[in-house]
């Protein structure tokens, strides 16, 4: 008579985490205590339906099992024994997971039917039910609790990276010694094939940010150890992807920004979590010019400053890459935008982008003018030290001074006494902390593309430089002569 064993339990973990372990037909020696060794025969992948796994059990028995069904939609795996030193005959087992939506847990159902030699029914039923299934439940609980599933797999077990992927030549801009723009030197190098969770990108446009200048000058050596390649963002198309990367295919148009520099190159391998797909309407150079700057504006206006209708906002370098986006977006939110610029030409550009009150100043004097307009409730400050006392003087009561950059030099410590005089706040946000998850990054990037599409922010007038001419581009940006964003073209 055919024996049937059913065991089920509830695991305190989301279904996708449990399934990631269970669906790997070769995973048992990492979590199930009875299994000493597991391997997939014939060099097949462990998620290949039809593959055979060979188990050595700790009690000395050996079992070969074949994967019959793998169903990622129903979270189900069915397998049978093809050969074993234990007398389980015609053994077919199915593991099914179901989500417990009430609590984000997982219901795990494990059942099998098999025949046994006469008189061994009970013994084998107990062995399967308790020794394999119930023990398995406990072992997997422990495995997940210890985070065993979060460590990277053994090489060559699950799916292995594309074996044919080779390093590709790349042109890149390297800083060997901190200093002026002349330290940006073009070189030939190789971009490694994408590892697990990585994607390799043929870059066409690279965004230049003021942060790149600080990195080159050696003002943040921890972020750019020598020799180092600056650059936080770029756009282009996907060349290839490593294992575990979902939703990105070769040829997809993408852009990225990441917390580690290295974007000044023609081919780069980056974590897929940094990458967003580009809408067809957004060109590579527009994406490179706007991604980090637009997301910076989004973070500042929505999260840090919470700008709303009527907020009096002071934007320094109002005709710069970030400044123009801030002006236009804040104006669309109903804010009153005051800007400082260093020339009449920049003033015109800032006005065109929604800056209502433009103060032209080359010597960081603006506080009186701002106070005549009622004082700034929010200041977005990329100027740094030379403008510190003017910023304090320009603040309205309960105002918020946001330090985004320090173009004129590192900011001296801001004294609490200076803030208490006006009940003021001071913050020093880092954008990358506001896009720490792929979902957040996608959401913010989408808001930037939407704002571009509906005219809230204008297509930027981009100043383009060849990748090899990065030094010229930096010199231009530092000269304060540029209007709008700069992009390197690779």
């Amino acid at each position, binding site marked *: 008579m055919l024996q049937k064993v059913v*065991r*089920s*339990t*509830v695991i305190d973990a989301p279904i996708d985490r449990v399934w990631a372990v269970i669906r790997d037909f070769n995973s048992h020696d990492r979590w199930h205590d009875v299994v000493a060794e597991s391997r997939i025969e014939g060099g097949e992948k462990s998620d290949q339906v039809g593959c055979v796994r060979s188990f050595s059990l700790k009690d000395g028995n050996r079992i070969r099992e074949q994967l019959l069904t793998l169903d990622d939609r129903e979270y189900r795996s069915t397998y049978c024994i093809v050969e074993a030193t234990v007398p389980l005959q015609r053994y077919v087992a199915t593991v099914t997971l*179901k989500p417990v*939506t*009430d609590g984000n*847990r997982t*219901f795990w159902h494990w059942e099998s039917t098999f025949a046994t030699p006469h008189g061994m029914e009970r013994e084998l039923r107990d062995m399967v039910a308790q020794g394999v299934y119930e023990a398995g439940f406990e072992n997997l609980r422990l495995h997940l609790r210890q985070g065993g599933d979060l460590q990277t797999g053994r090489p060559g077990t699950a799916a292995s990276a594309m074996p044919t992927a080779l390093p590709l030549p790349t042109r890149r801009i390297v800083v060997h010694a901190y200093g002026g723009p002349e330290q940006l030197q073009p070189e030939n190098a190789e971009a490694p094939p994408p590892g697990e969770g990585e994607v390799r990108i043929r870059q066409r446009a690279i965004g230049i940010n003021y942060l790149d200048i600080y990195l080159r000058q050696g003002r943040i050596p921890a972020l750019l150890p020598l020799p180092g390649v600056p650059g936080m963002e770029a756009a282009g198309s996907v060349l290839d992807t490593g294992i575990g990367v979902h939703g990105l295919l070769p040829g997809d148009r993408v852009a990225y920004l990441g917390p580690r520099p290295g974007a000044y190159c023609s081919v780069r391998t980056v974590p897929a979590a940094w990458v967003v797909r580009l809408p067809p309407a957004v060109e590579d150079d527009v994406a490179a010019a706007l991604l980090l700057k637009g997301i910076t504006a989004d973070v500042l206006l929505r999260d840090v400053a919470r700008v709303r209708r009527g907020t009096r906002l002071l934007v320094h370098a109002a005709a710069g890459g970030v400044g123009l986006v801030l002006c236009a977006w804040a104006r669309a939110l109903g804010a009153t935008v005051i800007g400082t610029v260093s020339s009449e030409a920049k003033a015109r550009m800032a006005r065109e982008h929604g800056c209502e009150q433009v103060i032209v100043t080359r010597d960081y004097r603006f506080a009186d003018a701002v106070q005549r307009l009622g004082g700034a409730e929010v200041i977005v400050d990329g100027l740094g030290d030379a403008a510190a006392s003017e910023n304090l003087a320009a603040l309205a009561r309960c105002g918020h001074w946001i330090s985004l950059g320090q173009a004129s030099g590192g900011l001296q410590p801001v004294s609490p006494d200076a803030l208490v005089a006006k009940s003021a706040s001071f913050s020093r946000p880092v954008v990358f902390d506001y896009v720490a998850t792929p979902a957040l990054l996608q959401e913010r990037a989408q808001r930037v593309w939407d704002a571009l599409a509906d005219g809230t922010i204008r297509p930027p007038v981009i100043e383009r430089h060849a990748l090899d001419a990065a030094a010229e581009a930096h010199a231009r940006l530092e000269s304060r002569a540029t209007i709008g964003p700069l992009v390197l073209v690779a």
Partner: protein
Amino acid sequence: MVRVYISSVIEAGADAVWARIRDFNALPLWHPAIADSRIENTQPSDRVGCIRHFHTRDGGMIRERLLALSDYDYSCTYEILESPMGVENYVATLKLTPVTDGNRSFAEWSAEFDCAEGRENELTQLIGQGVFQAGFDALKRHFTRR
């Protein structure tokens, strides 16, 4: 086609939970959102094909036909014939599975239906939380109180 799926774990054996929910006419006895219920044409409430005719506490009238009943699988499938919700082709299944590890039951309640464009989220919320989850919450309260 919109699909709603809600599942929960109830601290009682499947036989005990099934005894409480099996009767197609018993919604007012265990579901807090249902005010009254009767079976049309004096049919028994476990006859596949019978129609329950009930009112929600907010006054809505709903008619549903029993399409399948399985004491072996602890499952029951039914369709909506008439309701104020604005759903078409609505078929739902309520199913229990014993959890062998402890005297518990895994309960699933799912539905598929069509509706006017734009109402998907609202109806998913109403049916998933207002009906299915509310029913499970009531069962969980009932079986932990004892």
